């Protein structure tokens, strides 16, 4: 089976200040996305205030929530504990970089979240599809 861009993360979210969710790739795991992202923001706020530290990950018996702060956004990924920590983090970073490169300008205001929905089609691409498209774009620009 060909590997898709998202291989290890079961869910991921892109949050702006105040826990506003601007993009989510949601499976059946989270039933109430707004409540869940609000919860993440609350944990984050409390943890930062209480310990003067930055929240990195939350681990349970079966699941792991990984946090990544980039470009004023918080990228959050949920992966099974069976997946290695490094693999989950690498994939989240990879995903965050693609998201930022695609929506760098729009992220500045982030008011119209519908523009980010198109990213759903990126996620289901295979890695080779994505790389081919990148190469094509590169050659188009070059020529």
């Amino acid at each position, binding site marked *: 089976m060909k590997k898709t861009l998202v291989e290890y993360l079961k869910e991921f979210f892109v949050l702006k200040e105040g826990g506003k969710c601007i993009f989510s790739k949601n499976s059946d*795991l*989270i*039933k*109430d996305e707004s*409540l*869940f992202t609000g*919860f993440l923001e*609350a*944990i984050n706020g*409390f*943890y930062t205030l*209480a*310990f003067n*530290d*930055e*929240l*990195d*990950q*939350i*681990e*349970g*018996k*079966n*699941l792991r929530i990984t946090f990544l702060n980039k470009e004023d956004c918080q990228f959050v990924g*949920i992966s099974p504990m069976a997946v290695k920590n490094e693999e989950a983090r690498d994939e989240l970073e990879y995903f965050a970089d693609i998201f930022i490169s695609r929506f760098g300008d729009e992220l500045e205001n982030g008011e119209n979240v519908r523009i980010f929905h198109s990213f759903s089609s990126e996620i289901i691409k295979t890695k080779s599809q994505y790389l081919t498209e990148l190469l094509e774009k590169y050659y188009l620009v070059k020529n």
Partner: protein
Amino acid sequence: MEYLREFIVLKEGGKVLYCNSSELINDEILFGGFLEAINSFYNISLKDDLRQIEGIVLRISFLTKLGCQFVGISSMNVSCNDAIEELQFFTNRFIELFPEILNKDNENDVRIFQRFNSEIIKTKKDYLGKGFESNYLSYLLESEDW
């Protein structure tokens, strides 16, 4: 304690039974409520049991036993195994010293648990010494609580 910076024991509802007072936590009641809130929400939303929260600098480890939640806070410089092992050690020690925590009638007076302060300043080595388990066993047998 050698690896943990804080050791906290909570009952249902986030009630703090015991918290060794270091400079890390300024408001243990607020902190207990926060831990309870995280735990419940994590449980309900992901149908999973919370084990650990990691930051860049600190790690909060959770252990649930006998209806109580035992929480240890350690530096991220400490290995995860050392932190969890020490948390398990002091959890067992706490349960051995205060079997009454099982008794709901006793849970209102949390002052009795302050006796644990004299335990927490010891390291595992103080208990175990050279002959690890046999020394620990002798310690327990000599202890007044038996």
